[in-house]
């Protein structure tokens, strides 16, 4: 049994979609010390051979991000910068936006609304 499933937390997974010059990585589950590197490798994998104008990390469905998860968001930002793509976060009010605020990072990211 997966203990995270037992606690009712969705299993971590990343869904990457590229269309219309935008790569969107939708993050499910918890972004932390263990899963952060998985997001980074999922995104860099999705960006391989692509030249999107923007990269969006969609944290709308993310249950929880900790300080190590922030590191992954910063690493993804660097991956986008390296390719000359704009980097945007999609964040719902709650733990994730609060964490960004406490970490003093609110002004260091651009934001987009969730895809309806």
């Amino acid at each position, binding site marked *: 049994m997966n203990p995270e499933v037992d606690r009712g937390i969705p299993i971590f997974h990343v869904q990457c979609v590229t269309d219309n010059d935008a790569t969107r990585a939708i993050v499910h589950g*918890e972004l932390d*010390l263990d899963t952060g590197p998985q997001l980074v490798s999922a995104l860099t994998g999705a960006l391989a051979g692509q030249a999107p104008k923007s990269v969006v990390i969609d944290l709308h469905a993310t*249950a*929880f991000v*900790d*300080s*190590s998860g*922030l*590191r992954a968001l*910063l690493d993804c930002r*660097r991956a986008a910068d390296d390719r000359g793509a704009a980097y945007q976060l999609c964040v719902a009010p*709650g*733990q994730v936006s*609060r*964490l960004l*605020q*406490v*970490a*003093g*990072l*609110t002004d*260091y990211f651009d934001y987009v609304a969730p895809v309806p």
Partner: protein
Amino acid sequence: MSSPDVVARRGRNGTLAGAHCMTQTRLRPHGDQTEMRRMATVRRYEILDAPPEGAFDEITQLTAGLLHVPIALMTIVDSDRIWFVSRYGLEADQVPRESGLCASTIEQDRAWVINDAAADPRTRDNPLVAGEPGLRFYAGVPLRTRDGYNIGTLCIADFAPRSVSDQAIQTLRQLAGMALNELELRLTELERLHLASERRRDAERVAATLQESLLPGALPPTPGLDIVARYHVANSEQVGGDFYDVVDADGAVALVVGDVCGKGTQAAAMTGKTRWSLRTLLLDAWTPSGALNRLNQVLVRSADAGERYCTVALARAYALPGTGVGLTLSLGGHPHPLVVRAGGSIEHAGRTAPIIGYFPDATFYDTELTLAPGELMILFTDGMLEAVQGHGSSEDSRLRTLLAPMIGSCARVVADRLDDALRTSALCDGSLRDDAAYLVLRASA
């Protein structure tokens, strides 16, 4: 006698009496090199005197059932006794190592078959034959390890004389193979457990040593300021990323609580770098924002910049005789400390600023505040907040509820109360999810 093994052995040795003599001379070869190596192998399996195990009991039960005998034993031959790893149909844990039955079986590599033990000169004096339970039939095969030592037997016995077919001996051999496989599996598992616990002990020792070097010893005396710091590691095998410090610095007291992103030795290296950089920066005339700014510059220029960062709450505190404590506070990506006022109200302190060691252009701010005598300020890491609030919470309501009645308590009592809350939370989750550090400051009356 139908066993070809026994017939062949007879053919080689000529007579039964001859076989007996040979067995006698080799039976108790104490000091014999081969026997010493055999005993070393026996001990390696850690099976002597072990409690009964289901896997072995199944094998003896299966053996008795398949071969239609009342007794089946899996034995290990120790230096002076025969230990029954599993016994079916016999009430004993061990018997003395007397010649004739199992002790003789391991002296050779074939099946050892005694059709009528009471009549056979090799066995008639054996206590199991001459006395209780009066065995008359015995057939055993050695348990031969991969490195070639006969450590014990799988054997069958009966209270009446009988013969045994080649096919039955073949079955007994196969079952002995099964028994040995189980022993090997069990040994592998034991070795894995030993290795894991040894590794864990090593890791814990390294983590504890490293952790000690990252935390201050006794806090310096701070007249007018009542200060207690606590630190809890989530995982004793890993060095935590949280740290705190209390430093007597330039006529004031510096209070530091921080959290380095990540865990383990690399995070510990960053923790050390951060803590000692701050200590050095605090030697000069300093403001908290100035110190965080310089720390940020130091860390963004370091070799692992971009790999790691930290969050810090830094306060400069000084006693205001008769009126409490004056404070200047600066934050870098760190949760706001909480201030408990005399009336029981609780305030967030400090102005939000970015994490430290990542953005070269980050700006940090100073906030001035005063604590009246008896008022409290609590600096803490996000691990502490999460432990008290519950996983995934973005609020600090529980922490506030906990702290509101603490006004008037000394710092140690407040810290004990917070430790209780952490312990309760750790009990719920099994352990802390993250390290937790905090520092309680109370303006002495």
